[in-house]
């Protein structure tokens, strides 16, 4: 895996990009480490594509700078950068067959025919397209086009491979398979991958680290687990998965732990690396799967609260409940796996819900 000491292959320093009056990137600073699978995640229009195009050289920043492999890229056109791109539309040349597409960028090396063929076949084998060389490119399926685009970029042995929503044009099944395959491929070739996606699940599954972007800014840059467990702020928390936000009051706080009183739930002691003033209002978050329905009104668990089912959504393997906590107006979403013997509660049902203090995380109100 990636050690923390790995040197950055891409350094983005305070990059701003404006299109007329639109600010697409508003001071982005981040490092991408050599050999990591890095994702840019965010809602539509947050500037992911713009950042990727600046890395690839199709756009230039309004201000700020970009270094790839330690070199300033300000004056370097896309064809001279050590990056290659897998386009969202795949951009397979329709007038060339598969082998010609894959060998396109090698042509200027003037390799002997046999060597070119060997490399093309090698690249095709890498993406599981052995023997597809002579195929006409318009006779390919979506998944195959995507692999050709990958092979065509990988054959260039780039330092960084850039992928702009490479899976968004595929159907769900194929997308799931390709996520795993892409991840495996990245580990095989050891090249740095930078993936743009608006699909949080995809980013969580594939990435070593994820930068979550909103409105042209990086909101949080972390590993998938940290992002999910300890989102830096409310926006990140609600963009990735589902999060219950509940107001709380600080009871006491020291450098190691924090005692809070969670509205309608009760006191809890959390680990904390930050100190808060006693009596301060804060917000805590808890994921739906961190709350457990006990299926009995009277069950007695130390950390539990009474709840009334308000509504439910049945998903087959899961059921999502919207419950009211302790007859207050505070709601929570709870997800339960529908394992053997577990009933699906009807709206109006009364039950108890257990929780653990370390499942709560403090949410900055940004």
């Amino acid at each position: 895996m990636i050690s923390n000491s790995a040197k950055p292959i891409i350094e983005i320093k305070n990059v701003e990009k404006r299109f007329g009056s639109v600010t697409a990137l508003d001071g982005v600073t981040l490092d991408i480490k050599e050999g990591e699978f890095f994702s840019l995640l965010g809602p539509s229009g947050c500037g992911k594509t713009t950042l990727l195009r600046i890395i690839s050289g199709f756009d230039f920043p309004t201000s700020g700078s970009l270094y790839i492999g330690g070199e300033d890229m300000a004056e370097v056109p896309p064809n001279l950068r050590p990056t290659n791109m897998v386009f969202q539309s795949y951009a397979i040349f329709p007038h060339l067959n598969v082998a010609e597409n894959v060998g396109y960028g090698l042509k200027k090396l003037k390799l002997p025919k046999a060597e070119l063929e060997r490399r093309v076949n090698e690249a095709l084998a890498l993406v599981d397209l052995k023997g597809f060389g002579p195929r006409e490119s318009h006779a390919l399926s979506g998944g195959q086009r995507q692999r050709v685009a990958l092979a065509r970029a990988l054959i260039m042995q780039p330092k960084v491979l850039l992928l702009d929503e490479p899976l968004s044009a595929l159907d769900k099944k194929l997308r799931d398979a390709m996520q795993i395959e892409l991840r495996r491929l990245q580990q095989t070739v050891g090249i740095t991958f930078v993936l743009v996606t608006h699909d949080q699940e995809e980013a969580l599954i594939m990435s070593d680290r994820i930068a979550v972007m909103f409105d042209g800014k990086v909101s949080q840059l972390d590993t998938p687990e940290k992002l999910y467990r300890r989102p830096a702020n409310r926006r990140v928390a609600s963009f990735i998965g589902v999060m219950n936000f509940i107001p709380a009051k600080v009871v006491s706080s020291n450098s190691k732990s924090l005692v809070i009183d969670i509205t309608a739930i009760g006191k809890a002691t959390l680990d904390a690396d930050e100190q808060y003033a006693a009596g301060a209002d804060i917000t805590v978050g808890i994921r739906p799967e961190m709350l457990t329905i006990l299926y009995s009104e009277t069950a007695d668990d130390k950390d539990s609260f009474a709840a009334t089912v308000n509504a439910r959504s049945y998903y087959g393997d899961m059921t999502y409940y919207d419950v009211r906590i302790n007859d207050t107006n505070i709601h929570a979403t709870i997800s339960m796996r529908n394992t053997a013997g577990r009933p699906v509660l009807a709206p109006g049902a009364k039950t108890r819900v257990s929780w653990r203090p370390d499942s709560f995380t403090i949410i900055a109100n940004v």
Partner: protein
Amino acid sequence: MANSSEISYLQQPAKRTFWSIPKAYQDSARGYFLISPPLLYSLVMLAAPLVLVVLLSLWTQNYLELDRTITLKNYVEAVTEPLYGLLISRSLMISGMVTLATVILAYPIAYYVAMFGGKRKSMWLLLITIPFWTSYLIRIFLWKVILGYNGVINGSLMGLGLIEEPLTFILYNANAVVLTLAHAWAPFAILPIYVSLSRIDKSLLEAARDLSDNAFQRFFRVTLPLSMPGVVAACLIVFIPTVGDYVTPKLLGGTDGLMIANMIQIQFGKANNAPLGSALAVVAMFIVAAISISFVLLTRRFLKTKG
């Protein structure tokens, strides 16, 4: 709770239309550089000559000499001399009739191909254009053969014993010109109407039907208004060039079918009065432009539905 509208949106690949340009290429200098050869060509070969025509129309021809003092004399003559007024208004009348006839006759054809053409749409369009792939002059001339004194129509009618004498009202008059031009410009009317009809979303018609419009109402309330951009384009495409047509009136128009282009040609040729010819050309051009622009303005409310 997760904002589902934020995470479940669909990423649409950017559509690239004629005017929406990808960001990497907002480089006006390169745009100007590339557009300059055709632009320079048109400036030198079209704009400058047109300016010269206007200039020439302000000069006067005294037999063999050109008097370069600026005067409106030619325009006064063009406007006051009844013959010119007659020719211009006749040209406009004939073009107007041609336009009306061509577009009305063409609409059902375009409608049929667009709505009932099925998989054979391009075959139908090809079928419609084939007759026009021979010399324009020969096509016009063939109408003279069809309509003439000893022509195909008179020959057949007399052969069938339906008439004793050849019909004379069918050639050498404005009717002949209208008929011939309605033929010559048919594909130029059919194609734009066809394009706008075929762009109509079929579900709109189904919606109208669902809202219980009958076929007749459906046509006038949905199809016709939505195809107006094509109809307007067809009108302009037919009207503007036919005003300046020279060949048809000359071959089929007789004396009461002559149009302004024939007079312009006479001024540049036999009459040797290029300044007057220029003035007539300028006047004709401005009237045509004025009519076309007012036509577009009048029909503007139909054109808002982007086509």
